[in-house]
């Protein structure tokens, strides 16, 4: 059984080490993307005319294939983890910007008025009212971005074994060990599902006011797939 998890020594990492590396390469860019997207989204909420062009830019960046993006970056950042992480961060913007903008915009005017009447300034109103209400939309975006990021890290294998679990794909081929390829695919998929489940848990913790269990109680506005709706908005 233990033989299943043996990793060829050329990867200079254990099975768990590869998982950790994979997580790091996938999650850091998404978090950075989220931090970058927050002010961009806020600007788009404030200045309405800015939203369509910003969506167009993120959509165009998203259209660049990951492999091409990696390879072009090698010239600047070398065959390193950074080269894999930059495109993943950029891709996450196409999910985050519309998710946050829609989330913040969905806050009802009465709620905002109530906050103002209670004496909240614009900053506190944003942090304590708008952002928490937008959490379900943001987490929905976070889920899509993280899962696709975990899947894309593997492609980093092609630029000098920077793909963490994806590196097993190459080793499986050159050593004729399909076991390693199975191991890579299954571990990556399980990792994505586990991270997705963790994010669902985080959402439940952050939004204690939302109804639980009965899914039907979800408001119609809570569209669970912002990633898919992104491109639709972009073309308007």
């Amino acid at each position, binding site marked *: 059984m233990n033989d299943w998890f043996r990793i060829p020594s050329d990867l200079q990492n254990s099975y768990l080490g590869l998982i950790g590396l994979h997580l790091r390469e996938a999650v850091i860019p998404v978090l950075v993307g989220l931090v970058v997207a927050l002010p961009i989204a806020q600007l788009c909420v404030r200045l309405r005319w800015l939203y369509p062009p910003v969506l167009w830019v993120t959509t165009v960046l998203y259209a660049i294939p990951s492999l091409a993006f990696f*390879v072009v970056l090698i010239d600047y950042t070398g065959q390193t983890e950074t080269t894999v992480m930059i495109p993943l961060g950029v891709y996450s913007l196409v999910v985050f910007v519309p998710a946050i903008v829609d989330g913040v915009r969905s806050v009802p005017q009465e709620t905002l008025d109530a906050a103002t009447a209670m004496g909240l300034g614009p900053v506190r109103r944003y942090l304590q009212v708008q952002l928490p209400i937008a959490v379900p939309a943001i987490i929905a975006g976070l889920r899509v971005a993280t899962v*696709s990021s975990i899947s894309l890290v593997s492609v980093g294998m092609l630029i000098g074994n920077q793909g963490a679990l994806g590196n097993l794909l190459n080793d*499986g081929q050159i050593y004729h060990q399909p076991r390693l390829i199975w191991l890579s695919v299954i571990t*990556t*998929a399980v990792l994505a599902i586990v991270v997705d489940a963790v994010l669902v848990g985080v959402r439940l913790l952050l939004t204690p006011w939302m109804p639980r269990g009965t899914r039907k109680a979800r408001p119609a506005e809570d569209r*669970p797939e912002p990633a*898919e709706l992104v491109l639709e908005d972009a073309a308007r």
Partner: protein
Amino acid sequence: MNVLHYINLFFSDSTHWHGYDGIPTRLAEHVRYSLIALAIAAAIGLPVGLLTGHTGRGGNTLSLIATAARALPSFGLLVLMFVLIGFGLVPVMIPLVVLAVPPILVTTYEAMRSVDPSPVDAARGMGMNEANILLQVELPVALPLILSGLRSAAIQIVSTATIAAYVSLGGLGRYIIDGLYQRNYEKVVGGATLVAGMALVTLGLFWGIARLAVSPGVRRSN
């Protein structure tokens, strides 16, 4: 501007414009892979999404399937299928279809669910049967969102079809993979530009389709 310089070099080299490894050949291959994959994914995703959306049942199962399919790494799946099945189009099509089905399926379902129920009730009251309600009432209203799902799937297919070159097929990915191994930067950048350009053309194409296919009434109410 380093990259622009390489792009210029690549496209001004006349040897890149004809022959077995020429841009027209590779472009045609890439378009072919993308169209086949999109057709298969749509053939799976559209009917299932339309029916589940129409009946309103199976939404949770659907999102579970979509999450599972999204979790499968396309590149890993490609290598796995290549090792299991061998050289050919099938090992490339499987990961592309797995990649494209979730956006089509989920968006179609959501689109059908978001149709205003009162025209549907009116149609039922007028005596239309379920098939007619689905095709003549719900589908036209849901079309803009359904097309956006197809577009998102198409763009992902176009940019992911590049990895077909890794398992010795053609397509625009050839330039990127070959350029990478030959340390020919110009080729890599040229290939990347072509794929990105193709993705943008896809975007424009779907915009045009939406203009033509979506009924003016629906477009106005959006």
